[in-house]
């Protein structure tokens, strides 16, 4: 500070005022800049342009979305201005994004998370779009796209199932059988441990704590059924319920078979350990395929549905998160945005997307399945055969509740799996904070 002061004085000398004025001018300019840029963004409204906010920041989805938008541009003579943001950043800033000047159409998730923003009036209903595209979708998909008020708010693009993935060659080499129920599953895990494999790949370090929810969801769905699972997720059932205690007990049985050090490993590294034949199985989504770089390896990867626990429920539920699009609160180009959404809901758009990104399955039933690889075909069958489709822990529930209460609780518990009573008490103590409003 003193140094600066001194230097200024000697430098300024006779015309100190000009210097100060200059500094003042700079300061004013700096203050004025944010408002100027804000104006610039607001002015850009062009009847031939639709803006599109995309969370497909990774290489594959980015390429796939680009293929879809350029096909739309060719068809409609409109231009699409895509604004791509990293997936996690997009999610974190979604509320501020939607309240500011969002793009006309933006990528989002089906389920509670979509309904939340629809309820808050941050998205526009698109019943007229569905009048055009409705025929291509199953009732389950239609249900997923509606808000609590019964209006459509969402155009699904693709979904992907969660299941237990394995390598065929590993199962063949050791003579493993696909487990159908819980006792076979745990017995298989035990055998894998004897054979020197990490039975279940585990990686929930860094920002990947969401990945453990897949196991919890399936355990709870299989043991307690869809209805209870959904009421638990929506905050209608207490977490201290003895049925949840039962789920935690099952998880505890599985804990010794989890790959050790999961708390510091990314899901990608966990998936890699499956591909490298160090782990025997992985409870993960079809996006595992994004880790596969060598196509000969792709045909060696297979999955089976999460095994049955309670015969009452069997394997009737499949966790299949659905991604798609929503229309923002006040789109700058409503007509163009409607056309774009209609195109996105068409079989053509979905086929184009799937041809670039093979780790998903199209939702539109008219989309071509010809280009599907074996895993995609099997995924489509699994989802089509499901009685109930769930979205995923953090999509069926309040995401804040899941990410700040449930996920930290689970990760801590996984380090020292016990009967879970203190874990569940902690979660329950926070439930009312998220679900009363």
């Amino acid at each position, binding site marked *: 500070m003193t140094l600066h002061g001194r230097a200024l004085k000697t430098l300024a000398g006779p015309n100190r*005022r000009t210097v*100060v004025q200059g500094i*003042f001018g700079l*300061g*004013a300019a700096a*203050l004025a800049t944010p408002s100027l840029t804000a104006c610039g963004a607001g002015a850009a409204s062009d009847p031939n342009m639709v803006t599109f906010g995309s969370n497909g920041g990774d290489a594959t989805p980015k390429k796939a979305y680009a293929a879809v938008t350029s096909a739309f541009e060719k068809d409609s003579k409109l231009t699409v201005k895509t604004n791509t943001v990293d997936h*996690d950043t997009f*999610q*974190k*800033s*979604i*509320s501020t994004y939607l*309240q500011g000047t969002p793009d006309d159409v933006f990528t989002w998730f089906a389920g509670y*998370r979509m309904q*939340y923003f629809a309820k*808050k*009036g*941050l998205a526009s209903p698109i019943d007229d779009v569905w009048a055009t595209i409705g025929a291509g979708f199953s009732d389950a998909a239609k249900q997923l796209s509606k808000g609590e008020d019964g209006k459509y708010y969402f155009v699904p693009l693709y979904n992907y199932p969660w299941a237990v993935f394995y390598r065929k060659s590993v199962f063949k080499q050791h003579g493993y059988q696909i487990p159908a129920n819980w006792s076979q599953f745990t017995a298989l895990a035990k055998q894998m441990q004897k054979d020197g494999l990490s039975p279940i790949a585990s990686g*929930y*370090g*860094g*920002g*990947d*704590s969401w990945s453990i929810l897949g196991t919890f969801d399936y355990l709870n769905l299989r043991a307690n059924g869809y209805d209870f699972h959904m009421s638990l997720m929506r905050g209608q059932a207490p977490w201290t319920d003895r049925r949840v205690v039962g789920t935690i007990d099952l998880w505890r049985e599985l804990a010794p078979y989890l790959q*050790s*050090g*999961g*708390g*510091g*490993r990314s899901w990608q*590294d966990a998936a890699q*350990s499956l591909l490298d034949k160090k782990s025997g199985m992985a409870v993960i989504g079809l996006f595992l395929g994004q880790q596969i770089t060598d196509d000969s390896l792709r045909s060696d990867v297979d999955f089976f549905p999460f095994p049955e626990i309670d015969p009452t429920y069997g394997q009737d539920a499949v966790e299949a998160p659905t991604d798609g699009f929503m229309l923002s609160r006040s789109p700058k180009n409503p007509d163009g945005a409607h056309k774009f959404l209609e195109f996105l809901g068409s079989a053509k758009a979905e086929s184009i997307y799937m041809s670039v990104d093979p780790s998903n399955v199209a939702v539109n039933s008219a989309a071509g399945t010809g280009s599907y690889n074996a895993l995609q075909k099997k995924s489509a069958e699994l989802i089509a055969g499901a009685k109930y489709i769930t979205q995923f822990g953090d999509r069926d529930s*309040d*995401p*804040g*509740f899941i*990410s*700040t209460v449930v*996920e*930290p609780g689970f*990760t*801590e518990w996984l*380090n020292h799996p016990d009967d879970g009573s203190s874990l569940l008490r*902690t979660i329950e*103590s*926070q439930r009312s*904070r*998220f679900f009363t*409003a």
Partner: protein
Amino acid sequence: MSSVRTAPRASSRAHPRPRRLGPGDRLFLTVVVGIPLLALLVFVWLPALASIGLSFTSWDGLTLSDLHWVGLENYRQIFTDYPPFWPAVTHNVIWLLFTALLPTPFGVFLAYQLDRKIRFTRVYQTAIFIPMVLSLAVVGLIWDIIYNPDYGLLNGVISTVSSGHPIDWLGDPNLNLWAVLVASGWRHTGYIMILYLAGLKGFDPALKEAAALDGANGRQTFMKVVLPAMKPVNIIILVVTVMESLRAFDIVYVLGGGTGSKPGMELLSLLISDNITGESSHIGYGSALAVILLLVSLAAIGTFLFQTFRKEDQ
């Protein structure tokens, strides 16, 4: 008495310079003082007061109609029924103690050694300061690679010496805080070193010579001569250390994967962002946490500065 005596002197002196300011000068002064004042109000005081106000409400941050007045309810919940709160307070205290007791003295020590015109001192200075120059994303990446349980450097070194399970540095709630503290200390040391080195450059070597003539050894010279003479720098370093510890956020956020508080690594600053950012935000709750952090910071810095300047006044 004194006022009587000084009054005539003042009046007799006030002759040559006109004390009146012209209208142009007044306008200029108003603008020059007014704009920063306005900026201060808008960017510092308004948000601070708004946070305090919001901390007594419950609000999802979306529509104003959802804003409800809840009084002290947020504070009651935080203190009695918010599991990560007390661990976060503990971790902030650990952070402060660790930083004040290890990296800070070590940085001072390095500065003192490097000031002695040893060979390659510039090279050492640069090397030690480099962590401070790197962006935090890079620092996070570096330590992420070191701590990785499968192919990390640290586990690689350990496994050559002894076999056993890989150590989960960032995942184990008993270890991860210390792992992050090492990473943070690595940065902090360089920072303190540069600050102290700058102070030492302005230190009068004659004092050291005099101490040597009086027969003081190296330790005595440092403790009895250098350290007291460096008081202004010492204050800056202590304030910097306290501030850095209380606002610690970035490196934990980066190493924690950007998910906010992870078990074992909860910090007050992270709890604030946990509640405010994200899809379902609890602005009121987060604001209450922010107010608590503000009070703690004010208490820590305020007490310290008050003590220091009171001593100086005497």
